[in-house]
């Protein structure tokens, strides 16, 4: 079973990296970009035999403990 964790900065937290990306896209002529936010994806290969619900609960606990910093980040878990 695989889990995909998407971690991104919370709305309202300044993302200077995203701003630089948006600026660069604008310089390349992509003038439709109003804002860019940069996050990260973490792919987890999980042991077989877990139910999807149990896997999701475990991965959420992983996010709260290590994978994301709840002060500045939010996360979304996909079980595949």
């Amino acid at each position, binding site marked *: 079973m695989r889990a995909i964790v998407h971690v991104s900065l919370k709305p309202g937290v*300044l993302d*200077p990296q995203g701003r630089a990306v948006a600026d660069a896209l604008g310089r390349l002529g992509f003038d439709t970009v109003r804002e860019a936010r940069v996050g990260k994806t973490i792919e987890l290969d999980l042991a077989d035999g877990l139910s999807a619900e149990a896997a999701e609960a475990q991965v959420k606990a992983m996010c709260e403990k290590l994978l994301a910093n709840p*002060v500045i980040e939010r996360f979304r878990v996909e079980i595949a």
Partner: protein
Amino acid sequence: MKSAVIVFPGSNCDRDAAVALERASGRAPEMVWHKDGRLPDGVDLVMLPGGFSYGDYLRCGAMAGASPIADAIRAHAGRGGYVLAVCNGFQVATEIGLLPGALLRNASLNFVCRPQPLRVASNSVFTARFGGVREVSFPIAHHEGNYFADPETLDRLEGEGRVAFRYLGNPNGSARDIAGIMSENGRVLGMMPHPERAIGGQEGGEDGQLLFDSLMSAA
């Protein structure tokens, strides 16, 4: 005062920290490898040094929360021990829950490395020897020093006199010019500037020595 410096893989200010602590206390600190999992008996002060612990993987300071020494550091702080957390050490201190908030990428996106004027923002065991000196200069060198916390947390830190240092000329976008904050009991200080690089000698100035002298006279 008996002190210990935690050495993580990727720490690179641990020896500077040791020199500063030995100069101030007359006693070499114990160097504690992160895998040791415990602190030596009778340690009064734990210093979390600067550097790039665990290669800054995931987030600066994040992996330290899962390190074998993390529980021992939390327990030390929990029983009222002193902790001085500098630069990457400050990032570690927020990640392992010793201090509120987080350190974001500098607003400029640039790594900043320069002498940085600071205002001493409160009286504490870390600043007792500043003797009314309100402006000091410590070196800074960081890429993720942009202090962030929600407005309620910032209000509480300010209201409780827990902002230890503020930047004069904000170098990184930190909320309310915050350069260093303390725990509720005033015994844990996290700061981005490097007092251990300002203890006299050929560079860095000597303002940092006052911070170490303050600490030594506290215990």
